[in-house]
């Protein structure tokens, strides 16, 4: 089994250096992937059991870290249509105007517990660290609370209200991630916030700078002050603003790449040495190509990043429920050829 070693592997990647060993990065694994990789049957539906299973899965897969959502901080949003696998970002609309804003119940940060980090610490093997992440990012939560098109109109009609809503969400999420930095088991924080689509970002670059990035910048500053690392996840096209992710905010690594926007090979050539490139093997490519083709592309990616470093292998987005597991395992085996599937 590949031994986890966060400091010698992923931390070096995040420092844009060459890791001691080829390194893997994945943010979210499907339930099925966790189940099969861990070989562990949940004894109950408790979060402790789920964290334990995820740690076993990550250990077996060959990761140097495990993603843990520290607690159940939730912003109230409209429930999505039950029974459907997808949902519209226009669902929501709990805050559409001043009146609904005044009625909205914001979560009490004093009531937030970080007990899941204590749980993770109990089961964490030597060398493995925790990646602490958001229960959805700033823009995702604001869209969830307002509904996307409502938010777009609000940005034009009542920017003061939009500012207030972003502040309520952003300041809480900033505090939430900063609080996780006090836990020794946390090696890196992660701002997972889908802010883009194939052509561009969901709101304008200027609005991202005004409403979202100040909170990320402060989280990055606090993370670095503690000698830890910070990454980000977002789908979408960041052309015209990508440089600010590392140059202004201070993210050490960027996750999520799509072939239709910029294949990871191209992104690596463009940004190596500036920001760590995490994952990137396009999800659709993995789903639609053979195991050999997947392994070939992964090997090529490791080859081109071998001299410069700053790269960890993984999917372009996440191990989705619909991704055939044998194809995901083909990716893992490039780094972890002894991978055992129970």
């Amino acid at each position: 089994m590949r031994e986890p070693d966060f400091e010698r592997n992923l931390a070096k990647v995040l420092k844009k250096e060459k890791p001691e060993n080829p390194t893997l990065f994945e943010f979210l694994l499907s339930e099925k992937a966790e189940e099969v990789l861990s070989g562990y049957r949940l004894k109950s539906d408790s979060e402790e059991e789920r964290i334990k299973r995820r740690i076993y899965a990550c250990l077996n897969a060959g990761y140097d870290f495990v993603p843990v959502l520290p607690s159940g901080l939730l912003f109230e949003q409209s429930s999505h249509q039950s029974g459907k696998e997808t949902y519209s970002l226009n669902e929501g609309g709990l805050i559409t105007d001043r009146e609904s804003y005044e009625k909205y119940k914001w979560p009490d940060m004093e009531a937030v517990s970080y007990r899941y980090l204590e749980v993770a610490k109990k089961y964490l093997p030597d060398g493995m660290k925790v990646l602490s992440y958001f229960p959805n990012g700033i823009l995702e939560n604001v869209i969830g609370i307002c509904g996307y098109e409502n938010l777009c109109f609000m940005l034009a009609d009542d920017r003061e209200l939009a500012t207030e809503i972003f502040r309520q969400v952003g300041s809480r999420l900033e505090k939430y991630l900063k609080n996780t930095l006090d836990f020794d088991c946390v090696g890196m924080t992660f701002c997972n916030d889908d802010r883009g689509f194939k052509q561009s970002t969901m709101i304008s670059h200027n609005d991202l700078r005004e409403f979202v990035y100040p909170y990320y910048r402060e989280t990055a500053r606090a993370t670095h002050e503690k000698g830890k690392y910070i990454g980000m996840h977002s789908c979408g096209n960041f052309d015209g603003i990508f440089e600010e992710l590392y140059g202004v905010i201070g993210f050490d690594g960027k996750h999520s790449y799509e072939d239709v926007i910029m294949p990871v090979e191209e992104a690596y050539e463009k940004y190596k040495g500036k920001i760590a490139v995490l994952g990137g093997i396009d999800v659709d490519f993995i789903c639609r190509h053979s195991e050999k083709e997947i392994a070939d592309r992964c090997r090529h990616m490791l080859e081109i990043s071998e001299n410069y470093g700053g790269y960890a292998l993984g999917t372009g987005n996440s191990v989705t429920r619909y991704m055939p597991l044998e194809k995901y395992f083909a990716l893992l085996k490039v780094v972890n050829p002894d991978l055992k599937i129970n």
Partner: protein
Amino acid sequence: MSITEEISEKLQKGKAKDVSALVEQAMQEGIPASVILNEGLISGMNAVGEKFKRNEVFVPEVLVAARAMNAGLKILRPAMQSEGIKPLGKAVICTVKGDMHDIGKNLVKMMIEGQGIECIDLGVDVDPQRIVDAVIENDAKVVCLSALLTTTMMGQKDVIEALKAAGIRDKVKVMVGGAPVTQQFADEIGADCYTLDAASAAEAAKAFFTE
């Protein structure tokens, strides 16, 4: 600056109230509805589309511009009817079966309407047979299909197959789009058109009606 240019400019800035007032004023000045429509509203929306393609404006600005266009159209519609102005034609638009995403679909719809094409919006999670029925019922010349996921994009192929089974495939142009969709995929499933962005989709749709 002429009043139609002013309408176009206010529309691009998303100023719905100003657009309504200017359309009203233009009508009172005796400017034909066709001129107000083409040189004011459609021209403004075209400019927004061009800026969107160049990433000079973002989705929120497009939505706000489309809201302004609709405000202007609401005032102009009675005059359009009395002048006998008809849309270029009809397009059926929806997100395919199993997929609830609607932002991309709504954006394409707004852009297409901005070209003077009537859109029959069937919504999201739409069964192929419902699309076939809508094409027949409305005598639509274009079908626009959106899908956001690898798992749902094959639904676009299902619609093409359903159109073939109904014997109307050669009567409609099928346009496909969405995050995982590529030109290669569009070719594989036999779609007539794929575009990278909503503004280009609207131009392509217009070309189908005017070619």
